[in-house]
């Protein structure tokens, strides 16, 4: 049987303090988005501060264990095991902290009226441990695999360029950064200030903001 306990899922600590426990990826689910989150400690972030403005997902959060304090557009809601919070409006800013160290939140999401697509952020999250340990080749490979499924995805291209720049591959970094900016011009302004590109910012062809 294809089963796993939430405590046995991979544990990927994110820079913002919360811990991603990949569910969709663990089972290879393609029909809908689902992931679990835990905190590093009591009082720690468990759901990152974000909105769904880019993906336009409706999201349902279910507290599986422990107590959690959600902050939704500045309003606080304390939820315990079995309590559900549904956010239909993707623009609402939301986040949560764990009031118990072993709290678990399950998040389910999807965009109304369109087939579910695996989100690019999963790859970016997945690459975080490799980036933290400066295993650039592993991080680059993960992004290349994701781009094979989502060719031309600007955020993936941008991240790939960051890692190639860090890995000492300036030509690849420049090429991918230029592709990202071509699809999504806003990345030029990000690149102008991004420390990842310090080594290539003076190269000819670096996109201007």
């Amino acid at each position, binding site marked *: 049987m294809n*089963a796993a306990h939430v405590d046995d899922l991979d544990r990927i600590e994110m820079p913002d303090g919360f811990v991603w426990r990949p569910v969709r990826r663990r089972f290879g689910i393609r029909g809908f988005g689902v992931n679990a989150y835990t905190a590093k400690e009591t009082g720690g972030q468990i759901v990152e501060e974000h909105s769904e403005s880019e993906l336009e997902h409706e999201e349902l959060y279910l507290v*599986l264990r422990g107590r959690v304090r959600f902050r939704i557009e500045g309003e606080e809601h304390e939820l315990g095991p079995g309590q559900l919070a549904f956010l239909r409006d993707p623009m609402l800013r939301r986040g949560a902290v764990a009031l118990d160290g072993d709290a678990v939140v399950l998040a389910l999401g999807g965009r109304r009226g369109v087939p579910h697509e695996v989100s690019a952020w999963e790859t970016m999250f997945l690459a975080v441990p490799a980036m933290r340990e400066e295993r650039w080749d592993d991080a680059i490979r993960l992004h290349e695999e994701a781009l094979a499924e989502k060719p031309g995805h600007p955020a993936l291209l941008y991240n790939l360029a960051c890692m190639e720049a860090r890995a000492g591959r300036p030509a690849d970094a420049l090429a991918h950064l230029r592709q990202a900016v071509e699809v999504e011009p806003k990345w030029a302004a990000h690149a102008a200030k991004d420390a990842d590109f310090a080594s290539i910012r003076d190269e000819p062809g670096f996109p201007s903001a």
Partner: protein
Amino acid sequence: MRGRVSFTVGDETADAPAGTLIDVPDGVVREAVAREEGSIVLAVGGRHGRAFTPHGWDEVVVAFAKARRGDLAGARAMLQALIARQPGEWHAPYNAACFEALAGNPDEAFAALAQAVELDADAVRSHAPGDGDLASLHGDPRWQELVG
């Protein structure tokens, strides 16, 4: 989500305490039995490559519960609203036929069954013969005509 259940997927059975996630592929028979009072299972599903559209089975369950409590008008209104919202789906009028048959209204039941047959005769003819909800219609000549 809470408690403890015994989950069977295909021919495999496993103990599933709170926090267990189980992935069940399309077409595999699955069921679960609660091993603790108050157990809750959350089920989430979607079809790969298709936008999610509510199937309507949950409304059918609520409508039948209303009927069991004696609110036949409320149940009928829910089922008719479902038919109006899903005009191409055979199971909406099929469930209305079940409801009317159970309520002792054979004319309304056959009218709904005819609507379901028009939408998907094969599906209706594979489900209807074994469906106890429609048993009261078997002796009527219209049954042979519609279901065969």
